[in-house]
């Protein structure tokens, strides 16, 4: 069992060149994923979760660019790869699942065609073998009558079924890492649990790691081993799921957890964090969260905090600076 991390992201910076100047969308993001681990990435809309996933797999939409930082996949540095080299990685070593399953499938081709095409791109199988494998994949993801439905078109499936097909497609070439970007957001609540359960199971069966991007804390709690909390293009807390959820170290995470209503407590109003996440061109100096933070002090306004140890997790907050804690 190797102790090397499968994925290592160090100080990733992604910038967009716009008319108004250079906008920094990801400002020094660092995280790791061990083989077979499920890392959740949670945060509000616009915090940079999807961008992080896109940057890792090399699908940043221009004018976005990685301007500094490193991404290592099983020890290999991939952030500077050419398009050809990236194509060799995508699908085979890193798989991706996007939010809208209907939009992810080409409406003009049967799902069988799309599966077989993916399989044969990466594996040296004949058409017959690929088809067999495709049927097995569909069965594994819980599509009934797979041998028959393999010839059907995307519009002939329901939302939940479609996402299962998408999962099958993403795993067709047996990647080591799967980046799932809001895989259940577009689905009915009743289906969400099924699909997430399927994703977790099928990845664990293959020993594939998952980067699960979502804004739903409940899903994170149920599924992930570790979680990273993002805010304004930065990671503000990262650690084991139980630790972060039950003993959040960063005031933002505290606020997030507090705003989730509890079935048992009676509430007059929903708790919320005052203010809003700053726009990319208006990020305050020092700690990005300090204007909204109930515990901010002088240092927060001046210096941007690094990820500091807080128990078994790490938080980017001066409250956990050794001098402060002591």
């Amino acid at each position, binding site marked *: 069992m190797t102790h090397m991390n499968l994925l290592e992201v160090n100080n990733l910076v992604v910038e967009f060149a716009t008319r108004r100047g250079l906008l920094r969308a990801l400002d020094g993001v660092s995280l790791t994923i061990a083989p077979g681990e499920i890392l959740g990435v949670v945060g509000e809309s616009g915090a940079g979760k999807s961008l992080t996933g896109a940057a890792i797999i090399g699908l940043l939409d221009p004018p976005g660019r990685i301007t500094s930082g490193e991404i290592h996949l099983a020890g290999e540095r991939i952030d500077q790869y050419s398009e050809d080299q990236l194509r060799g*990685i*995508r699908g085979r070593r890193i798989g991706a699942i996007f939010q809208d399953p209907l939009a*992810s499938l*080409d*409406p003009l081709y049967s799902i069988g065609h799309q599966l077989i095409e*993916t399989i044969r*791109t990466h594996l040296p199988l004949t058409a017959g073998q690929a088809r067999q494998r495709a049927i097995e994949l569909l069965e594994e993801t819980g599509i009934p009558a797979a041998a028959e439905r393999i010839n059907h078109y995307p*519009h002939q499936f329901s939302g939940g079924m479609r996402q299962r097909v*998408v999962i099958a497609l*993403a795993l067709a070439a047996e990647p080591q890492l799967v980046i799932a970007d809001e895989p259940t957001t577009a689905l009915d609540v009743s289906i969400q649990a099924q699909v997430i359960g399927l994703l977790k199971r099928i990845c664990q069966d293959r020993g594939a790691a998952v980067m699960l991007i979502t804004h739903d804390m409940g899903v994170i709690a149920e599924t992930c081993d570790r979680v990273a909390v993002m805010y304004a293009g930065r990671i503000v807390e990262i650690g084991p799921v139980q630790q972060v959820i039950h003993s959040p170290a960063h005031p933002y995470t505290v606020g997030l957890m507090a705003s989730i209503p509890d079935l048992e407590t009676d509430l007059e109003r929903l708790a919320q964090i005052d203010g809003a996440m700053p726009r990319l061109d208006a990020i305050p100096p020092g700690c990005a969260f300090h204007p909204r933070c109930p515990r901010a002090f002088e240092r927060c306004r001046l210096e941007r905090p690094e990820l500091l140890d807080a128990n078994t997790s790490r938080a980017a907050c001066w409250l956990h600076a050794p001098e402060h804690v002591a």
Partner: protein
Amino acid sequence: MPIFLLNRLLQASGVLVSVAFLAFLLFQYVGDPVIFLLGQDATPQQIRELRSALGLDQSFLVQFQHFLGNAIQGEFGISLRQGTKVSKLIAERLPATLELATIAALLALAAGIPMGVYAALRAGRFSTQVLMTISLLGVSLPTFLIGILLILLFSVNLGWLPSFGRGDTLQLGWWSTGLLSVAGWKHIVLPATTLAIFQLTLIMRLVRAEMLEVLRTDYIRFARARGLSNRAIHFGHALRNTLVPVMTITGLQLGGLIAFAIITETVFQWPGMGLLFIQAVSFADIPVMAAYLCLVSLIFVTINLIVDLLYVLVDPRIRIDRPRKA
């Protein structure tokens, strides 16, 4: 599917009848329909007889019925200008126009689609910018001017190609073709090119715009995330999705070639229906105008129907006969 077909046929008939109605109004009220039917050399006796036979005091609807009956048989009376039966004139001229339009359509498609695809895939390159500028020129140049410039270059200055007429034609039964002789081909080159250029430009710009849109969709993104080859993505998925909507618009536009042929035929003195029509307009030759109107709308409606049918064949989402499963 049969219901769909029936629906479209009904719509088509509706359009045909409305156009016939317009033609009827022209025939009946702009000038004397009896003269139209008998010709200007008719004797007063014949005129009297026909007038009572037609019963011009009969109800509007009956007269329209009469006109429709005639129209379906191709009977539109006698040309004011030429004194011969309109149906004979049109039969003589139809092959010339159809040949010209077909060659031009093939030219426009064969050149326009690849150019559009190239412009979309190589967006931003210098060669593409040049292509787009030339295409703008194609849209800004009226057809007749293109014809004149081509004549100036290839006929007057270089003397390579002839500038008027059809050359040697072969009579195959009712159809006269110029495509079976070298002279015939030489004669069709310039007019067909002139006719094709405008359509070519439109097709190219349309294909480019549509393909750029398609390249931004989620399913293309997912295809890239699966590591599919560029060829599979661009020509398998993107191109097919581009061509489906393009097909509809292009089909309708190609019908317009028949009308644009009017201009081309005038410039090159091509003995087709268009030249006949323009002469009729200058002369206020109503019978010919009415006949042309009905014939052209018939051609349009037929092309529309064919395009609709093709659409059903190509897009699996609208095949209503397939049972939808959950």
